[in-house]
């Protein structure tokens, strides 16, 4: 298990560097896809099979396909050319320090393993992974789920409205 985690963690680091280090937008986007697939494998190793599938279907399979679409159609490599201003590294350092501090506090206050909640692997295995998530979402978290779905619906309707207006 530890060896598996080490392999996936290394994969995550390499692909995350790839997201920012490649010079061609298509490779940046595909690195992000690879990173998301690795994240899905991490979910799988944490016994969260449903999240594994959802992560791949929603993020790698739908959201990132649209990113890749746009990059292939717009070809931003040829159209947009940023001239480096020489001050970007300041932002990098500031945000890097903030994130490192956040991660550090998390690590020292809670440790790496975390606390055992109500849904232990035995409880989930008895009810089924998908069933457990479904029951939790539609009983205890019903209100947030419905609010989020209305929000997404509004976004979809708004996108259709904006697109329609441009066609006319």
């Amino acid at each position, binding site marked *: 298990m530890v060896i598996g985690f080490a392999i996936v963690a290394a994969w995550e680091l390499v692909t995350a560097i790839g997201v920012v280090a490649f010079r061609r937008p*298509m490779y940046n986007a595909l690195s992000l896809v690879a990173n998301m697939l690795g994240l899905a494998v991490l979910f799988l190793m944490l016994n969260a*099979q449903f999240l594994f*599938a959802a992560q*791949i279907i929603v993020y790698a*399979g739908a959201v990132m*396909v649209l990113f890749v*679409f746009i990059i292939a*159609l717009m070809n931003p490599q040829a159209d947009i050319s940023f001239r480096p201003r020489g001050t970007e590294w300041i932002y990098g350092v500031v945000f890097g320090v903030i994130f490192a501090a956040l991660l550090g506090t998390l690590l020292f206050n809670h440790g790496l393993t975390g606390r055992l909640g109500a849904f232990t692997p035995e409880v989930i295995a008895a009810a089924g992974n*998908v069933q457990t998530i479904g029951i939790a979402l539609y009983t205890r978290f019903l209100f947030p789920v419905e609010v989020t779905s209305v929000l997404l619906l509004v976004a979809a309707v708004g996108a259709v409205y904006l697109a329609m207006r441009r066609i006319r």
Partner: protein
Amino acid sequence: MTLEVVVETLIKAVIVIGALLTGFAYLTLFERKVQARMQQRPGPNRVGPWGLLQPAADGLKLFFKSSSAPSSRDRFLYLLAPMISIMASLASFAIIPISGPGTLNLFGHSIGWYVMNVNIGVLWYFAVTSVGVYGIFLAGYASNSKYSMLGALRSSAQMISYEMALGLSLVPVFILAGSVKLVDIVNAQHTWWFVLPLLPAFFLYLIAGIAETNRAPFDLPEAETELVAGYHTEYSGLRFALFFMAEYINMIIVSSVATIVFLGGWWGPFGILPGPWWFIVKVVALLYIYVWLRATLPRMRYDRLMALSWKSLFPLSLAMMMVTAIVVVAAQGTL
């Protein structure tokens, strides 16, 4: 996970891949033969008895063909794309239980009739096929050709759109079976196949499945009259063969999933045949429908294809889902 489980899974994976590749080879012959009979010609009948060695001859020809590739291609992605396609198709068969109930007892081990029985079941299939979109899209992008790019764009848009209808058309089955595990779904069909109460969902699934595999009459991505060969225009030799394999294996997988979730999987009436044979008979019957449609129907126009998905199949599967949920709750007497 013990070493024994790893070895068992590996052996089963090798067997399944071998069976799928053989199935692919003979599916091409089956398609050519059936289509030929429908068009009143004999079809391939020169290589071996009844043309039975034709797939081997085709394979050899593709193997020895020199591969040509566009010089302005993206070298890495051009190689990666067919691999993604074939891996996605082969991996999705891992969850299909070809027989049951119970296990196969061999050499003192009890072996399941599937490569793996994951508790997310059908979601594995959706996850793997959604990665398969990249194979097709990257093929079009990396070829750096207009035909390939147009074919790839059409294909990915089509696959993403129809994946919604495909997924939603299976939700009524989950509601009736109370599980997404394929083994549980088949066991729930011991007395009644789900195709009887869920006939509309079965048709929705078949239509979406045909579109998802880019087959006629939804084969817009490789509409040869306008796009030469679509996303694999610039591929030749064995690399083309990989895309070809992926398409036909996807057909087998869509038919297998339909068999499992709607047609009762390994259950057959009267108990006259053992489980795996029932499974194969049903899959071949569905594949025949695929070929039949290809020989019968003309290609759809692209905007109609997208409208069919978003304006008909999607709302219909949502409605089917709600009706099933209401009926199930009412039958349980909790409404």
